């Protein structure tokens, strides 16, 4: 039965190989890399209560919206901004080269206030229409702001009432500029000159345009990797994977001879199928994920070891070559199943409970185990059956 089906089984294997090659090649750009490999920032924010601004549902929703606005203005490709639980907001910024700037822009409340001499707030950033970086006559960066109609009215009143007196401009309670009002400003436009660097001015303009956060926000987790460091990790991981695969291939041939060669063929199929499925699932490869893959390369041939050792035993006990192969595959299967299920239990837990990069480890380990069961048992069997009469193994 098995023998008669062999051409079909071979066809299935070849078909899968062809399909996988189509999915996997050209490799460049096909595999989604995690932030730890492509570089970027993973930032977790938490809204915290203050006496003036307790956190409520609406506030958190607005925080998400405002942060999205700010990030849009940073020009990050494919950012992730997602609410997590009641008060947390997850922000992922792939490819960001200056994580400190990103954190600064995302986490700032950015409440702009104008205060008169007595310290009373006469106007806030809530009435802003626009904010832009300009340069004054000396070439220094300043932030030009314009108010909406309500704001323009308030600003006109404030400047009229305070001619000859200072009007302090505060950001999050900190004085950033304290100009003296020369004459009433009625047009609803003004400049903030705060001895900024260009970047500071740009940041401020972004913050003012996107609006102030309604509640205080704290950065409770920040994991950022600079892109070149990520590339170093990719290269090191790739090198280890290639060397690891070569070591395993060599070991199997040296130890199991021509049978080892078939196991090697199955291992190469494993690697191909693994990445085809990985890409198909649109999974994300992280640094721990690379470690998980490297680990499964070693585990993948375990099935072959178990099968071949069993075949040897059966042959030694006086069975024919073919009968030994049949018995070897059959009897080793239970053990292989057991072995993989226990490892899978651990892998799936990492997958479901882990967060961030370690999830990638769970993903590659689980996928590797499942995929290797197929290649280690079913695909190897096709290869072994194909060459069974020509094979010899020292027993």
């Amino acid at each position, binding site marked *: 039965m098995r023998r008669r089906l062999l051409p079909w089984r071979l066809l299935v294997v070849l078909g899968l190989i062809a399909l996988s090659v189509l999915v996997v090649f050209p490799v460049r750009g096909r595999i989604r890399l995690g932030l730890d490999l492509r570089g970027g920032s993973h930032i977790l924010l938490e809204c915290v209560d203050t006496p003036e601004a307790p956190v409520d549902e609406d506030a958190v929703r607005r925080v998400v919206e405002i942060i999205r606005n700010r990030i849009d203005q940073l020009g990050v490709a494919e950012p992730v901004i997602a609410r997590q639980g009641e008060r947390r907001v997850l922000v992922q910024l792939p490819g960001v080269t200056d994580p400190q700037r990103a954190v600064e822009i995302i986490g700032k409340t950015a409440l702009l206030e104008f205060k008169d001499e007595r310290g009373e707030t006469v106007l806030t950033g809530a009435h802003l229409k626009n904010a832009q970086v300009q340069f004054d006559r000396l070439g220094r960066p300043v932030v030009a702001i314009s108010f909406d109609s309500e704001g323009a009215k308030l600003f006109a009143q404030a400047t009229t009432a305070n001619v000859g007196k200072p009007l302090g401009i505060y950001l999050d309670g900190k004085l950033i500029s304290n100009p003296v009002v020369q004459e009433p400003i009625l047009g609803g436009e003004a400049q903030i000159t705060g001895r900024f660097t260009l970047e500071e001015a740009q940041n401020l303009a972004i913050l003012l345009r996107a609006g102030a956060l309604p509640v205080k926000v704290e950065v409770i987790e920040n994991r950022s990797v600079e892109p070149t460091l990520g590339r170093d990790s990719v290269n090191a991981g790739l090198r280890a994977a290639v060397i690891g695969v070569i070591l395993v291939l060599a070991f199997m041939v040296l130890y199991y001879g021509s049978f080892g060669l078939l196991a090697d063929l199955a291992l190469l199929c494993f690697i191909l199928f693994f990445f085809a499925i990985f890409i198909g699932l649109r999974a994300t490869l992280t640094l721990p994920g690379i470690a998980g893959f490297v680990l499964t390369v070693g585990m993948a041939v375990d099935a072959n070891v178990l099968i071949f050792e069993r075949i040897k035993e059966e042959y030694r006990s006086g069975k024919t070559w073919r009968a030994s192969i049949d018995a070897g595959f059959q009897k080793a299967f239970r053990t292989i199943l057991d072995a993989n299920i226990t*490892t899978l239990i651990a892998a799936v837990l990492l997958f479901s409970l882990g967060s961030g990069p370690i999830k990638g480890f769970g993903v590659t380990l689980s996928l590797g185990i499942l995929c290797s069961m197929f290649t280690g048992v079913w695909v190897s069997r096709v290869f072994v059956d194909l060459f069974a009469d020509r094979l010899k193994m020292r027993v």
Partner: protein
Amino acid sequence: MEFIRATHINFMGVRKAAYVVSLVLMALSLGSVALRGLNYGVDFAGGTLLQFRFSREVATEEIRGVLGSMNLEKSIIQRFSPTEVVIRTPKLSQEDQKRILSLLKEKFGSAELVRVEDVGPAVGADLRRMGIVALLAAIGGILVYVAFRFEFRPAVTSVLALAHDGLTVIGVVSLLQKEFTIPILAAVLTILGYSINDSIVVMDRIRENLVGRKKGEELEDIVNRSVSETLSRTINTSLTTALPVLALYFFGGKMLQDFALAILVGLVVGTYSSIFVVSALWVDWEKRSPRRR
């Protein structure tokens, strides 16, 4: 090429010695965890880890000097590469992180922040809780599986050996004061899942051989025969798994080195325990209170 022939080795004869070795391993591990403790990384402990890159080679003492001006001279400073340094401090504010960068820039001409791991206490606590849940769930899941799969006694001895393997990995991490991070926890979990495999192979073989027990054959002889028969597979499966992990340790970059080390330790101790401990414990149990078969 053949390293291992199914010769008859008297594994059970050295089981007293194996018990001593295992007890010492466990005592050392427990002692180290109790006395030296685990060096929790920022994942679990919270805190700030910053990696800087310079345009020239930098000594850790120079960095310490700079940090001293911010009263952070007690931070952990490690060289990542000749031009890269990792510092680990209690949780720093954004302003302090910025200040360190500008101080380093001032002192060394150029400095670039290439990695930040900044974990607040609440997140650290979350991760700790999640880690413990994952660990317990993994142990629970494996226990349930083994209980279904095995008879009672082999299940118990396998799980004892498993605890021994996991404990030893954690013990080595503690002894070497490697950072206990999420990847290390992942390594421990993986070892728990993987290392029971060899025990399953051996105990299955014992069960098989018990059925065809020859007259007058001692329990020890059956076990010796079973362990010998499965020896090449026990060793080869571990070896094929160890090979790529070795590649990871030597070529996979600094970030994965400790993870690879933990897996390697787990593989070695797991192989040892499934050869010398699991079946030995079972033999002693059976001899002390034999069950009728």
